[in-house]
């Protein structure tokens, strides 16, 4: 009961922050609200008994990716004039955002309708998880059953390294 109440409160805070991200004019304010959104999501994960994911959410999204975001915002340092000029070039943004958002809602809807509302429970209930330990269980599953996706992740990261260097390298030589 108390958990659901907390979940509702945190959920509304998260959505409010996410809306602020979209409606803020200043990119730095947007970024700050995005950090707050990430942290609120981490709290939601804790309420869902996924402590490991919660910690990772803060470490990676709030602590690493948002640093990159803020660096990029500061690097580009858009002045008022740039903002006005850029707006028209992004006309395809709105339709594609609506379509992708719709697909996401449908996907989440089908999954929840098929599982949660029909009372289907997974193999690992909160009780078993807290007995083994959240991180221990993630480790065991990730490195036995899901080892292939894990190795694929390294190739993805490798591709990201190459991409980042190639994108930035031209600038390094110029400097």
């Amino acid at each position, binding site marked *: 009961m108390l*958990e659901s109440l907390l979940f509702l409160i945190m959920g509304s805070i998260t959505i409010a922050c996410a809306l602020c991200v979209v409606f803020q004019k200043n990119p730095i304010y947007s970024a700050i609200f995005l950090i707050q959104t990430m942290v609120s999501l981490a709290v939601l994960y*804790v*309420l869902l*008994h996924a402590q*490991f994911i919660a910690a*990772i959410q803060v*470490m*990676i999204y709030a*602590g*690493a*990716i948002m*640093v*990159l975001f803020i*660096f*990029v915002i*500061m*690097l*580009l*340092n858009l002045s008022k004039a740039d903002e006005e000029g850029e707006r028209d070039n992004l006309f395809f943004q709105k339709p594609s955002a609506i379509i992708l958002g719709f697909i996401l809602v449908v996907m989440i809807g089908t999954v929840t309708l098929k599982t949660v509302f029909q009372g289907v429970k997974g193999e690992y209930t*909160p009780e078993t998880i*807290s007995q083994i*330990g959240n*991180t*221990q269980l*993630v*480790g*065991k599953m*990730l*490195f*036995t059953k899901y*080892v292939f996706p*894990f*190795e694929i*992740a*390294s*190739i993805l*990261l*490798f591709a*990201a*390294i*190459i991409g*980042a*260097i190639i994108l*930035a*390298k031209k*600038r*390094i030589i110029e*400097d």
Partner: protein
Amino acid sequence: MLISYLPILILLLVVMGFAISNIIISALIGRHKPTAEKLSPYECGVEPIGSARERFSVKFYIIAMMFVIFDIEVVFLYPWAVAYKSLALFGLIEMAIFIIILLVGYVYIWKRGGFEWE
């Protein structure tokens, strides 16, 4: 289970209260006599030149990018480390493959001068 996170919430409230009240108290009882000189940015006594919001070197961006990638690697190591004794040799080989692929990328950054600050 969840009850062990309640103290963290209370601590957060206490600490935030402390930080915010500090700022409010000093704003209330500190003196306020702003002058144009006092409010201008400090540039060692010289008249400020231009804006401080300059664009800066792309190197910082590369460092942040590399940090994101290697931080994800570090995060994968934590669940691996806690389950290591039950995974044993199999776990070590798995992680070795993962790290070696990333090390190839690491060597690539090194060779292309991604870590250089000339």
